[in-house]
């Protein structure tokens, strides 16, 4: 069979740290080859060397049997390689059409009408229903993700690299993506696919290559292995799957939200969260979950309604006052609202503790606290002085979690707690959230991952199109019920049917 791409004995170090060690990888025409590994295993780094962003220290690379050297993304594109990056890479002010064709516009003088017409079929193909003339900044993250995919399709690439393409898509859009992937492979395109979700790998992958700590562990046929075997290859041990703590004692009402509304975003949202309770806002993307969470934290305003914290009314919440009242917030968009990219891990982690006056800015004072979190969360590399931008995506997420764990809070608002986190760490983070609840912290989270919602929540509130449409206890909840309420296929008698 034709090898579209083959990489042999790839090595790569960053300032002395060996990130890839003798890694090999190959891709055949028409296959989906998944790349699996824990956070920091080196997946993104390998992909970036295949796309010409990093130059490997040693190793050989061939495309269609011809040995090549890729020294820039331009070179990679010339070889028919396209990449969808883990962190979105679009230009907000430009239109969808311009973003899709960026670098491929054709003649120097642009004809927008022609460009938009050229792009339309690709948007149809990925199921993105926005006009090609819309500026990208007006799209949701999920729509932006589809733009990235349309861009790779438009490039007529023979090799498409997808680094966690589903990390901001919901079920419906993931289905859409599957379909696009299948159409592409049917046409002989080879796809390299990175994901921490085994269901996606089962649905799509022909072969799977596993990396661990930068080393090549092996390549297997997906159909021949079980999930347990893959996990074992990834982490080098068997993972004990724990179920959540089913009989948690809940305490006093900590957060009381009444008839909260913001025109155009959410209406009449009423619910409570108790101490020691994990409540999840479930629903499709665009249902208004993130908006509610942000309004409670004072990150965005609301037009009507009431918020009470421990029985005390908060008339105009702002992040600064909420933080001082013991509320923590982890935003959905890590890159823009979470990290300070060029600062050290320690600084990123201590930001809130400083603001709370819990710790000074001197290295010595911080070190112990930072080290504790690095240990507890298993952050790799375990180096408090690393610039956070250089950490893998999943490890960055852990640092943000560490920020609130070390600052301490009584109510934690988390938007997508495990986006981009590998299976092993996910289990750790679930245990951590259970622990926090056990200690009496109230937790309100938004999650689009149904198994996660079921695993963690004591209660599930389902939102649809800006309204609260149902409530499920842990015992009542199932993936079908949540989806039914979220899509409007089912209703909850206690909530007025809307829209």
């Amino acid at each position, binding site marked *: 069979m034709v090898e579209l791409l083959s990489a042999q004995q790839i090595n790569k170090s960053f300032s002395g740290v060996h990130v890839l060690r003798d890694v090999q990888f190959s891709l055949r025409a028409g296959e989906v080859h998944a790349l699996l590994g824990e956070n920091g295993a080196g997946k993104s780094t390998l992909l970036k060397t295949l796309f010409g*962003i990093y130059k490997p220290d040693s190793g050989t690379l061939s495309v269609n049997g011809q040995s090549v050297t890729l020294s*820039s*993304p*331009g070179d*990679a*594109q*010339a070889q028919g390689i396209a*990449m969808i*990056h883990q962190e979105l*890479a*679009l*230009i*907000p*002010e*430009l*239109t969808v059409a*311009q973003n899709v064709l*960026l*670098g491929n*516009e054709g*003649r*120097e*003088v*642009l004809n*927008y009408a022609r460009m938009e017409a050229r792009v339309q079929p690709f948007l149809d193909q990925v199921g993105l*229903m*926005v*006009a090609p*003339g*819309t*500026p990208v900044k*007006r*799209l*949701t993250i999920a*729509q932006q993700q589809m733009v990235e995919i349309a861009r790779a399709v438009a490039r007529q690439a023979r090799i498409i690299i997808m680094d966690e393409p589903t990390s901001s898509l919901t079920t*419906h859009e993931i289905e859409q993506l599957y379909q696009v992937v299948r159409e592409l492979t049917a046409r002989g395109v080879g796809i390299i696919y990175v994901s921490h979700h085994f269901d996606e790998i089962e649905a799509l992958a022909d072969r799977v290559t596993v990396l661990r700590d930068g080393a090549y562990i092996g390549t297997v046929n997906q159909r021949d292995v079980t999930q347990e075997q893959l996990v074992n290859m990834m982490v080098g041990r068997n993972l004990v799957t724990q179920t959540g703590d089913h009989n948690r004692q809940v305490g006093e009402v900590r957060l009381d939200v009444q008839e909260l509304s913001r025109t155009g975003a959410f209406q009449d949202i009423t619910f409570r969260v108790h101490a020691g309770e994990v409540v999840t806002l479930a629903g*499709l*993307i*665009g*249902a208004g979950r993130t908006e509610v969470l942000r309004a409670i934290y004072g990150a965005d305003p609301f037009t009507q309604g009431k918020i009470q914290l421990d029985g005390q009314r908060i008339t105009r919440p702002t992040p600064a006052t909420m933080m001082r009242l013991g509320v923590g917030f982890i935003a959905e968009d890590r890159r823009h609202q979470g990290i300070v990219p060029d600062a050290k891990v320690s600084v990123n982690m201590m930001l809130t503790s400083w603001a709370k006056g819990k710790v000074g800015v001197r290295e010595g004072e911080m070190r112990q606290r930072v080290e504790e979190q690095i240990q507890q969360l298993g952050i790799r590399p375990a180096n408090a002085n690393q610039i956070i931008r250089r950490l893998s995506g999943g490890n960055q997420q852990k640092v943000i979690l560490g920020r609130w764990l070390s600052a301490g809070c009584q109510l934690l608002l988390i938007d997508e707690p495990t986006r981009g986190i590998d299976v092993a760490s996910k289990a750790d983070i679930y245990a951590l959230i259970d622990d926090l609840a056990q200690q009496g912290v109230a937790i309100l989270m938004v999650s689009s991952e149904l198994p996660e919602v079921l695993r963690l929540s004591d209660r599930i509130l389902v939102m649809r*199109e800006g309204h609260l449409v149902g409530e499920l206890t842990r015992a009542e909840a199932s993936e079908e019920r949540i989806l039914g309420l979220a899509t409007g296929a089912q209703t909850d008698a206690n909530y007025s049917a809307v829209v």
Partner: protein
Amino acid sequence: MQTIQQSSKPSGRASVVEQLREAGILAILLLGALIFSFTVPSFFSVDNAISGIGLSAAINTIVAIGLTYVIITGGIDLSVGSTAALSAVIGADLMQRGLPAILAVLAALAVGAVAGLVNGLLVTRVQLAPFIVTLGTMTFYRGLALSYTNGQPILSLPDNFKNVLGGNIAGFPIPLLVALLLVGAFTLLLKFTKTGQYILAIGGNAEAVRLSGINTSRYITLTYVISGVLAAFAALVLIAQLGAAEPILGSGWELSAIAASVVGGTSLSGGKGNVVGALLGALLLSMLQNVLTLLGVQAFYQLLATGLIIIGAMVIDRYTRGS
């Protein structure tokens, strides 16, 4: 959920609000002109409109076009005034030594291009901050201009040069005409060519553009070269008016050009801007200065007014942009 997504309907490239903003400056400009023409005697005369406002605005506009390009990429060029002086004295000197005016003009423009190229290469290859690079070259180019002429002005430029660049076509001054043509050309370049769109895109997300396989350094450097050439050109327009080139000409140009760009809607954080706005901004600032001069207001009060206009424009911008 598709219903929510579809509400972000087709919207075209420049949003309605952005176009309104531009129209807003234009409205302020016209309104101001109208009020002044009734209240300030001698404001509304062809003579004043052209020599009092048009010429200073033309020079500022030409410089501001280049700065707008640089600022759109997220950079800044503080060296335009010094680049202008350096090109002017070299061009003037060559003319005095008997080189045909057209060749001297080309040489002066080449000096501007090289000055811009140096800025661009320091920013892209050595990866220094644009502010620092051009702060340094601002001083350096000025030093070059002064030492080239020993601090003396170069007088008595040839008539053919003065007549062409300082002349009129059907009563319309050539500098103003040229400024308008340049505004048109650079607007088209920004809006309808790959080069222009890459420059905008770089300001929006340089890393994403680089990952799209585009040589971002080349386009960033190009904006500094444009800025240098236009500064040189503005200097030639000025010395054609004055009939002499002084090595200290152009000081403070960077600030008025930045002001014109920003008043015209160019964002200092990059990714967004337009050349027509820079023209309107330059006209507004010149008109204000002219009126205050006609009214006999002392120079230091004029500074207060100019400062207020700049901040006022930013405040309006903040509120018209909404979020």
